[in-house]
């Protein structure tokens, strides 16, 4: 880099540029929080849904599955599992409940978590709430 471009110019670009774009990022964040109520299905967050989210977290479901495309890639996407299971809460609960304790020989299997009925219902409600977030048309199809 030639002498015309000095270290102090470089430093000013760093401080000025970072400060400007940090501010812009904060403005966009603020705008996002204003726009979210119309998209994030917050009206559906009942105490049971919140409970379901906690069950989701305390069993690290995201350590195998993706949810809205984020998480692990070992097991299917769950942001649209409600639709994939024919809009049936019972189907979701039934699936989780019936996982074999010792797994399936040679194949990937979901653990048996021994959830109570109340936990099962909560987690299903959480997934139903998640499935109705406006995700700009993602995933591309029902297979997630």
């Amino acid at each position: 880099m030639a002498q015309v471009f000095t270290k102090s110019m470089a430093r000013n670009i760093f401080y000025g540029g970072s400060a400007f774009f940090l501010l812009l990022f904060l403005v966009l964040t603020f705008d996002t929080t204003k726009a979210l109520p119309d998209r994030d299905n917050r009206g559906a967050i009942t105490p049971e849904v919140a409970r379901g989210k906690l069950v989701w977290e305390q069993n690290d479901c995201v350590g195998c599955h993706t949810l809205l495309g984020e998480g692990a890639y070992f097991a299917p996407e769950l942001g649209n599992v409600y639709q994939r299971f024919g809009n049936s809460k019972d189907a979701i609960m039934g699936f989780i409940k019936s996982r074999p304790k010792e797994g399936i020989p040679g194949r990937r299997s979901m653990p048996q978590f021994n959830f109570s009925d109340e936990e099962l219902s909560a987690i299903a409600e959480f997934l139903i709430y998640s499935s109705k977030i406006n995700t700009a048309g993602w995933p591309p199809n029902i297979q997630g």
Partner: protein
Amino acid sequence: MQYKSQAVAKPYFIAAIILFVAQILFGLIMGLQYVVGDFLFPEIPFNVARMVHTNTLIVWLLFGFMGATYYLVPEEAETELFAPWLAHLMFWIFLVATGATVAGYLLVPYATLAELTGNELFPTMGREFLEQPTITKIGIVIVALAFLFNVGMTVLKGRKTVVSLVLLIGLLGLALFFLFAFYVPDNLVLDKFFWWWVVHLWVEGVWELILGAILAFVLIKVTGVDREVIEKWLYVIIAMALITGLIGTGHHFFWIGTPEYWQWWGSIFSAMEPIPFFMMTVFAFNMVNRRRRNHPNRVATLWALGTAVMAFLGAGVWGFLHTLSPVNYYTHGSQITAAHGHMAFYGAYVMIVLTIISYAMPMLRGRTSANSNKSQVMEMWSFWLMTVSMVFITLFLTGAGILQVYLQRVSDNPQPFLAVQDQISLFYWLREAAGVVFLVGLVCYIASFFVGSREPEAVIEPSGSAA
């Protein structure tokens, strides 16, 4: 080693390497579970292996960053570390907390660990990369604060260089953004939005400052190029990193319920994120070509150049591959993501930590500037084995990802997730094979600390190439 207190870096580096081994072993376990689904089931379910793999990765990189800081700050500040005892104390606290947390993951079901650590009182567990119990997270904050205080005081009482300033800003940002790990709202969209403030703003933001500073330090040392030149480069690189990387966070806000304008902001700014990584490559090669001396630690120079190249490939090229929203619509959350995650983490952060260890460890172990030739040759073997096998891991995962995306998301008859996984298992087998080679490389790496340690130091070969 010019200052006695630089020695506190040594245990940090050793702990980093030990955790690196654990990380890779659990990676191999998961890689096998991908193709032999019931391997170690139900004793070590996939999600448990995964949190051990990713958490040990992050923690060993943090050990590496701290060790790097303790090594280079006294030298830059031209003064002893403010409180070496505090650095030792924090080392043990961090190590014990890490050990206890990993033991917790492996010994009890995760839900039990949540219960034992009182997660319901202050829930922060169960999010990707941030699986640690709340108490561990608080421990991390305490260690980080003590660390920043110690380093900050050292810089304050000594010479203030651009390298240590940039490093400090990066570390401060690391600690600040980690605080978002404590924000876990019931609203899934808000939760995800701010989760990225930890994850993205780390690896594509403040960690790049840390990476740049360590790279600059090592290049100053091994090339003897004028500090002024290197510092100017450093400023420009980190300026571009933050200018592109802050708004670039938007590439994670395409499909998680956030407004659709992020598809524009995220695509455009993140498409420019490769620029700082490209500049790093040009920078590293330029400095080495303009070197004023040949340093006897040739393998450290190799690591430094390797970091620059592999960070550009993993973060820059593989990141760009899926960062435009029309592409990301199909690749989001697929094996393409995993391919990129592996090469980017390896190329940028694993390699920079191995670079500073390679440069500093000989001095920390009593050499004047380098290991013996024999030891360096072994370390070069490990460089090539690990780096080439990581390239193959990335290529195999990319192959798996392209097929996965096609079969599951693009073709006329989209197939279910698990049906697709069965069809691409060949790629997973190949990935696992490449992973075994990576482990061989890691074994060579560790061996390089023991072979030739009684032989005399390498010396600079007479050469006319120094310009």
